[in-house]
C-alpha cells in the first residue's frame, strides 16, 4: 500500500484518466483543456465570421431580397431583407463573439494552457481542477451568449461595448432578454477568465524547472504571464460593471440611467445615474482586453521568427521590458476611447500622452522583429509565413493608432470606419495570424503529424491579401467621415457622393472570398489530423524550448516522471562552435562552447 501511495506521489500529479468522460470531456489535463479552448474558439470564429458576412451583405444590398436569408431568419430578415435591428444584432454578436470567445480564449486559454506548462517544465498547471472549471465556466458563457439569438426580441443591439442607456432600457430597443443573456454570459466569462489568470500566474511563478530563471523564459511564456496579470486585474472590473448594468435592467436600480429620460414618449422612472460611469468601467477593462488579445500573438511571433530565422531574438531583454511596459501602460490609457464623450479636456490630454507612450514599446517590438530576421537564414515554413504576416499587419494596424491617440485628430476619426480598420487589423487579424502561426507550429507536437505545407501556404497567401483587401479600404471610409455601425449608407448624402458604396462593395467581395478561404484552413487541420506526414523526430522544427524534448504527443504528465533541467537561454540559435545550429534549453551546460548561457 505504501508503495502505491509513494509512486502516486512521486510520479504523477494526478492519475491518468481511463474513461472517455474524464479523459476528453471533464479532463483536468492542461493539454486536453487547451485543445478544448481551441475547439471552442474555432466554433466561435466561424459563427463570428458568418455574422460579419451578414453585416457586410446588409451594407451593400440594404433592400435587395435574398431569399435564403428569409428562410433562415424569418424574423430578422422578413422576405429576405434584413431589418436594421437585425443588422445591429449581428454586429453586436459578431463583436462579442470575436473579442471574448475567440481572441481571449484561443491565444491564452488554448495555446497558453497547452504549451506554457511544458515550456516551463511542469507536469501540469498549478491547479488542474481549477483549470477545468475555468474552461467549463467559459463554455457555459458561450452557450449563454448563443442563447441570446433564440430568445424573443433576438440578440442585443447595443454593440459589444453595450453603452447604457441604450443597453439598459428596453424602451429604447426592441427589448427582450437578449441583453440580459449577453450580460450574464459576460459575467460567466469574467469568472472563467479570472480563475484561468490566477492559474497561469501561479504556474509561471512556482512550477518552473530548475535553472529556468525569469530571464530565460521563452517570450511566449512571458506574454502569457503578462496577459494573465492583465486578465486578473481587468476582468474583475468588467464583472462589477456587468452586474451593476444587469441590476439596472432587472432590479430597477439607477447606476447608469440618468433621471428625466423620455424614450419613445415613455417617461423612464429612474434618477441620477451616469452613462459615462459605465464607459469608464468598461474601458478600464476594455483597453487591457486589447492587449490580452494581442500579447500572446506577439510572443508566438517572436518565438517563431527566431526559430526559423535561426537567430536569437534580437534584444531579448528589450522584448521582455516592452511586453511588461505595454501591459502596465495598458491600464492607464482607457480614456482615449472617450475623447468625444465630454470628458475633461485636461484628462483627455493626459490620456493622449500616455497612449502615445504605448507606441514606443510597440515600435521597439517591431524593430526587434525585423532585427531578428536581419542576418538570419530564413526557413519559409508556413508558421514562419504567418509570423511575418503578423509583423506586417501589426505595423499597419498600429500606425493608425497614432492618429486615434491624438484627441485633436480623433475628434474627426472617432467612431468612423478608420477606427474599425485600426482595431480589426491590430487586435483582430494580427492576433488571428498569431494563432494561425501557433496552430501550424505546434500541430506536430499536438498530434504527431505535420500540417500540409501546400495547403498552409495557399491559405496564407490568400488570407494575407484578403485581410488587407478588407480592412485597408476601411481607412478610406474613415477619411470620408463614414460613421461606424450604420446599417446602410443611403440616408446620408455625402457618403454616397464620396464613393462609400463602391468601397463597401469591394470590401464585401473581399470579405466573402476571404471567409471562404478560411474553410481551407479547417480542411487542412482535419486532413492533416488523419493524413498528415508523421513526424520522425520530437523536434521537427529544430527548435530550442522544452516542448520539443518531450514525447510527441506529450505523455499525460508531460515529461514521463522526469523534469528537465534548464542550462541555456531560450533562443540559442547558430551559436558559433556548437555542433548544430541550435542549442536546446536543457542541453548540457557545455553544449554552447562559445558563450555562457544566454542571460
Amino acid at each position, binding site marked *: *500500500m*505504501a508503495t502505491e*501511495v*509513494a*509512486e*502516486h*506521489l*512521486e*510520479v*504523477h*500529479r*494526478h492519475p491518468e484518466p481511463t474513461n472517455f468522460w474524464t479523459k476528453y470531456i471533464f479532463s483536468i489535463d492542461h493539454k486536453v483543456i487547451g485543445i478544448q479552448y481551441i475547439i471552442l474558439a474555432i466554433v466561435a470564429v466561424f459563427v463570428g465570421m458568418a455574422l460579419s458576412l451578414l453585416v457586410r451583405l446588409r451594407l451593400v444590398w440594404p433592400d435587395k431580397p435574398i431569399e435564403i436569408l428569409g428562410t433562415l431568419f424569418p424574423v430578422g430578415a422578413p422576405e429576405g431583407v434584413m431589418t436594421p435591428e437585425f443588422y445591429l444584432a449581428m454586429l453586436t454578436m459578431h463583436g462579442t463573439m470575436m473579442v471574448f470567445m475567440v481572441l481571449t480564449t484561443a491565444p491564452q486559454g488554448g495555446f497558453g494552457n497547452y504549451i506554457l506548462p511544458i515550456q516551463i517544465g*511542469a*507536469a*501540469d498547471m498549478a*491547479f*488542474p481542477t481549477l483549470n477545468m472549471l475555468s474552461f467549463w465556466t467559459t463554455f457555459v458563457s458561450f452557450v449563454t451568449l448563443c442563447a441570446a439569438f433564440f430568445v424573443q426580441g433576438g440578440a442585443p443591439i447595443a454593440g459589444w461595448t453595450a453603452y447604457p442607456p441604450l443597453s439598459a432600457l428596453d424602451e429604447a430597443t426592441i427589448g427582450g432578454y437578449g441583453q440580459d443573456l449577453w450580460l450574464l454570459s459576460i459575467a460567466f466569462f469574467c469568472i472563467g477568465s*479570472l480563475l484561468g*489568470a*490566477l*492559474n497561469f*500566474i*501561479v504556474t509561471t*511563478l*512556482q*512550477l518552473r*524547472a530548475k535553472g529556468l530563471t525569469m530571464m530565460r523564459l521563452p517570450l511566449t511564456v512571458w506574454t502569457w504571464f503578462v496577459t494573465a496579470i492583465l486578465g*486578473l486585474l481587468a476582468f*474583475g*472590473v468588467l464583472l*462589477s*460593471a456587468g*452586474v*451593476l448594468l444587469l*441590476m439596472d435592467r432587472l*432590479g430597477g*436600480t*439607477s*447606476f447608469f440611467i440618468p*433621471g428625466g429620460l423620455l424614450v419613445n414618449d415613455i417617461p423612464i422612472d429612474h*434618477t*441620477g*445615474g*451616469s452613462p459615462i*460611469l459605465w464607459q*469608464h*468601467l468598461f474601458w478600464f477593462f476594455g483597453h487591457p482586453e486589447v492587449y490580452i488579445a494581442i500579447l500572446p500573438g506577439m510572443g508566438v511571433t517572436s518565438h517563431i521568427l527566431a526559430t526559423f530565422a535561426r537567430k536569437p531574438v534580437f534584444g531579448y531583454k528589450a522584448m521582455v521590458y516592452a511586453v511588461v511596459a505595454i501591459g502596465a501602460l495598458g491600464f492607464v490609457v482607457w480614456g482615449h476611447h472617450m475623447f468625444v464623450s465630454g470628458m475633461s479636456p485636461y484628462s483627455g490630454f493626459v490620456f493622449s500622452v500616455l497612449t502615445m507612450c504605448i507606441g514606443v514599446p510597440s515600435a521597439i517590438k517591431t524593430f526587434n522583429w525585423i532585427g531578428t530576421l536581419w542576418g538570419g537564414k530564413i526557413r519559409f515554413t508556413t508558421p514562419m509565413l504567418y509570423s511575418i504576416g503578423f509583423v506586417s499587419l501589426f505595423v499597419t494596424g498600429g500606425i493608425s493608432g497614432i492618429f486615434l491617440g491624438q484627441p485633436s485628430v480623433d475628434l474627426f476619426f472617432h467612431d468612423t470606419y478608420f477606427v474599425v480598420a485600426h482595431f480589426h487589423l491590430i487586435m483582430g487579424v494580427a492576433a488571428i495570424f498569431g494563432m494561425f502561426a501557433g496552430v501550424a507550429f505546434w500541430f506536430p507536437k499536438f498530434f504527431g503529424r505535420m500540417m500540409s505545407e501546400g495547403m498552409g501556404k495557399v491559405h496564407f497567401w490568400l488570407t494575407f491579401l484578403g485581410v488587407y483587401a478588407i480592412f485597408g479600404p476601411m481607412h478610406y471610409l474613415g477619411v470620408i467621415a463614414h460613421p461606424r455601425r450604420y446599417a446602410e449608407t443611403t440616408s446620408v448624402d455625402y457618403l454616397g457622393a464620396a464613393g462609400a458604396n463602391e468601397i463597401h462593395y469591394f470590401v464585401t467581395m473581399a470579405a466573402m472570398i476571404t471567409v471562404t478561404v478560411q474553410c481551407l484552413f479547417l480542411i487542412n487541420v482535419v486532413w492533416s489530423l488523419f493524413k498528415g506526414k508523421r513526424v520522425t*523526430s520530437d*523536434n521537427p522544427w529544430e527548435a530550442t524550448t522544452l516542448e520539443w*524534448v518531450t*514525447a510527441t504527443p506529450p505523455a499525460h504528465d508531460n*515529461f*514521463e*516522471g*522526469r*523534469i*528537465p*533541467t534548464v542550462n541555456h537561454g531560450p533562443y540559442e540559435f547558430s551559436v558559433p562552435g556548437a555542433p548544430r545550429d541550435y542549442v536546446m534549453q*536543457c542541453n*548540457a551546460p557545455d553544449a554552447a562552447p562559445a558563450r555562457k548561457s544566454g542571460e
Partner: protein
Amino acid sequence: MHLTQHLRGSLANKAMGNSTPATLEQPSLVSFSEHQRIDIDTPADGEASGLGNSNPATSDFEALAVHRYKLGVSVGFGGIIMIFAALTSAMVVRSGLSDDWKSFGLPSVLWFSTIALLVSSFTVEKAKRALRNSNENGLRTWLAVTTVLGVAFLVSQWMGWLNLTERGLYLAANPSHSFFYVFTVGHGLHLLGGLLAVGYVTGRVWCGHHWVTRSAAIEAAALYWHFMDVLWLYLFVLLLVWR
C-alpha cells in the same frame, strides 16, 4: 524513511526505463534533474496517514503545496480587490455626480456581524497554530468554532437585509441602498466561498482524515478568511462613512 528514499531511486530508474529514449533527440545532450518535483492534488486518504510529518519527502512536498496554495489565494486577492475597487469608484462617482443620494442608518446588527467575523479571524489563527503544533484536538475545536462564527456572520447579514426591507429600503429605493446591497451581497458571496472551504476542511478533520495537502488547504483557507475579514472591515467603514 529509508523505504521512501529507496523507492525514489527505483522509481526514477523506472521512469527512465519507461520513457522512450529513442524519441529524445540526442539524449546524451539532454539533462534531466535527479530530483523529482512532488506535486499532487488527488487526496490520498486514510492509508496515507502513515506518511507523517516526520517523512522528509512528504514535508518537502507539504511545504511546496502550502506555498502554492497560499500563492494561489494571494493572487486571487488581486482579482477580488479589483472587483471591489471598481464598485468603490462607481459609488464615489455615483454619489458625487447626482443629487438623489439619501443617507440611511445601517442596521445595528452589522456591528454583531463585524465582531463575529473579527473573532473568527482570531479562531482560525488559533486553528493554524494548533496545526503547526500537531495539536489535533485544538485544530478540530478551533476549526469548528470558526465555521460556526462564519455561519453566524452570514445569518447576521441576512438579518441586516431583512431589517432594511422591513424599513422599506429595497434594492432600487435609492442608490445608497443599491450600493449597500451590492457591497454586502458581493462580500457575502465571497465569504460563502470561504465558508465552504473552511467547512470542508473542518468536516474532513473531524472525520479523522489526514490527506497530503491538508496543511496547505488549512493554511490557504485561513489566509482567505483573514482577507475576507479585512475586506469586510474596509466595506463596513466605507458604508458607515458614505452611506
